[in-house]
């Protein structure tokens, strides 16, 4: 279990972390979500000892996280980068050795990950000879080569096309299924809600919402209603507490109190016109985020 407790960090006037706490559990994927500049990268750097905290603790399996334990973590920094002129096979193997693998084992692990990621025949190529997408795969191999017990990925989905994102999601789920503790960050809250089981939402250095995704959404005081009526029919809700959120392409989104009966809503809407689309579901992470920070 990886725990960040009450992390505090200021850079001059800027408060990057203001009491942020989160817990990541083995075998589960934690989405560490929040807008740009919320403190995600600072918190992740703190896990790797790259930031001297003003206060707070990072612990692993109940003990303060030290250098030795950290070597069993895999890291994908927000600022991607590898040695451009180094052959990728040697590069990944070298990074494996840096994390404590013996040379032969590092070579085998590098080869196996590069094979797995479809770069088997590129092992002897220099990084700079690879396309951007393939370089991203090498970056992932670099985070995984030493069979880490925990994976910390800073914005791993940024810049990926849908295929690559799906492949990455598959690897993340597979690692978690194998018992690895996975934390990844994203500023695109809704894109990743299928990947994570737990969430911690951070804003201005504080975690404002955390728990299992299901529980967090269930606990929410609102539900999201998407409704479309035939023609340009307008629905003026006769049910209390319904709040119109946005309308686009004939589809209108409302926030309604969680306890509202969907059948009553549907019946009320049907009085305004023929209902062509009706969806009643827990709020998205963006909705939850908005509610949590009230803006």
């Amino acid at each position, binding site marked *: 279990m990886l725990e960040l407790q009450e992390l505090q*960090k200021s*850079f001059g006037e800027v408060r990057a972390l203001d009491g942020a706490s989160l817990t990541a559990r083995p075998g589960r994927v934690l989405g560490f979500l929040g807008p740009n500049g919320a403190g995600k990268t600072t918190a992740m*750097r*703190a896990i*790797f*000892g*790259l*930031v*001297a*905290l003003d206060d707070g603790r990072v612990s692993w399996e109940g003990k303060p996280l030290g*250098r*030795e334990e*950290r*070597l069993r*973590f895999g*890291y994908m*920094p927000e*600022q*991607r*980068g*590898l*040695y*451009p*002129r*180094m052959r990728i096979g040697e590069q990944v193997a*070298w*990074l494996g*050795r*840096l*994390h404590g693998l013996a040379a032969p084992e590092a070579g085998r692990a590098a080869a196996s990950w590069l094979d797995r990621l479809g770069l088997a025949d590129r092992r002897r190529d220099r990084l700079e000879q690879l396309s951007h997408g393939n370089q991203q795969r090498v970056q992932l191999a*670099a985070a995984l080569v030493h069979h880490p017990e925990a994976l910390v990925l800073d914005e791993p989905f940024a810049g990926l096309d849908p295929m690559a994102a799906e492949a990455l999601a598959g690897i993340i789920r597979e690692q978690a299924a194998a018992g690895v503790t996975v934390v990844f960050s994203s500023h695109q809250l809704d894109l990743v809600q299928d990947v994570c089981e737990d969430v911690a939402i951070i804003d201005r250095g504080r975690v404002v919402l955390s728990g299992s995704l299901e529980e967090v959404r269930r606990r929410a005081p609102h539900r999201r209603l998407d409704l479309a009526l035939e023609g340009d029919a307008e629905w003026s809700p006769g049910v209390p507490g319904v709040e119109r959120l946005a309308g686009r392409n004939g589809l209108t989104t409302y926030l309604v109190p969680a306890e509202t009966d969907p059948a009553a809503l549907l019946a009320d809407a049907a009085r305004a016109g023929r209902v062509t689309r009706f969806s009643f579901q827990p709020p998205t992470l963006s909705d939850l985020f908005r509610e949590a920070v009230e803006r």
Partner: protein
Amino acid sequence: MRAGRDVYLVAEREVRERIRSRAFVVSTAFTLLLVIGVLAVLAFFSDRPPPAYHVGIVGQPSSGLRGALDLAATANGALVSTEPLADRAAAEAALRRDGVDAALFDDGTILIARRGNPDLESMLTLAVRQATFVERLAEAGFDPDEVQDLLLPAGRVQVEALEGGGADGDAGLAVATAGVVVLFVVISSYGQWVLTGVLEEKANRVVELVVAAVPARRLLAGKVAGIGLLGLIQLVLLIGIGLGAGVTLDLFELPRTAVATAVWTVVWFLLGYAFYAVIFAAAGSLVSRQEEAQAAAMPIALGAVGVYLATFVVVLPWPESVGARILSLFPPAAPIAFPARIALDAVAPWELFLGVALMVAAVYGVVRLAARVYAGALLSSGARLGWRKAWRAARHVAAG
């Protein structure tokens, strides 16, 4: 043990990647060819013919003068020819139009156009004295020819010196000069390699991944050690090939100080390289883009050029002067100035001890300073950082 393994892994990567790079192969080959070329050119020009003098003789010279002149010429490695001249006026005229290099009178006077050729003066003085000596012996009843023969074995006199300067002087100066050039080139070029290596890691942003596993100071140590090992290999090659080619081309005999100079050159290289490399590394960590490499290196490179020139102007001509002593004890200059003084045999043991001690202290100091700046600046991106800012930024970096 972890620290040693980290440093080793970083250094190993540096060596492996650089030995394969075209830049390293080309620069090493070029430097070696340059040294051999310079030595070959020197060898060509050092094959000068022996000096030849034409001497006018006025009046009736003593019978032994001709023989004495030959003897003196042989002793000086010179060739001498003579011609009779009528009187002093004729001698002066011949001297003025460069018809002769000197004129000898039968009263023992030696007339030259101007002073400035001590070899010629001493050679002629020797000849005249010897001729007078032979003449007096003849007057005392000795056979002039026998006397002449008796003098022959004394034609060549071996000079041995207790202290340097004498016979070793030229070769010592050549070795010192070559040492200054080679040390300057190797220290500053490999130092700048460290700078570009650091900058490359920052510009390509691989550094964050690496320092998540290896503390910044170990990364710095490994990088400096790896590149330094390559520099050391190049330096040893240069010294070996330089001395070897010099001896083979008959340019110089190995001066007595050669071995000591070579060993001390390596020691001072290690100290000087360590000193400059960590400063270069810190300077490289302050910038984030390749285009800024030149600007980052400039102040340090200028400093190195400064001490290099100072060594040329002060230390090589006057190795025992106060200026040379101060320069060779001043850490930034010592790695270049000190070996030159050692080659010129102008160093007292206590000075060497003090110099090394000061240098080691200075290296320790800059490593402390530069490593902190490096650690502080490593994860910054964007605009160029100042040294002070980076020093303060180090507070935000946990594991140094």
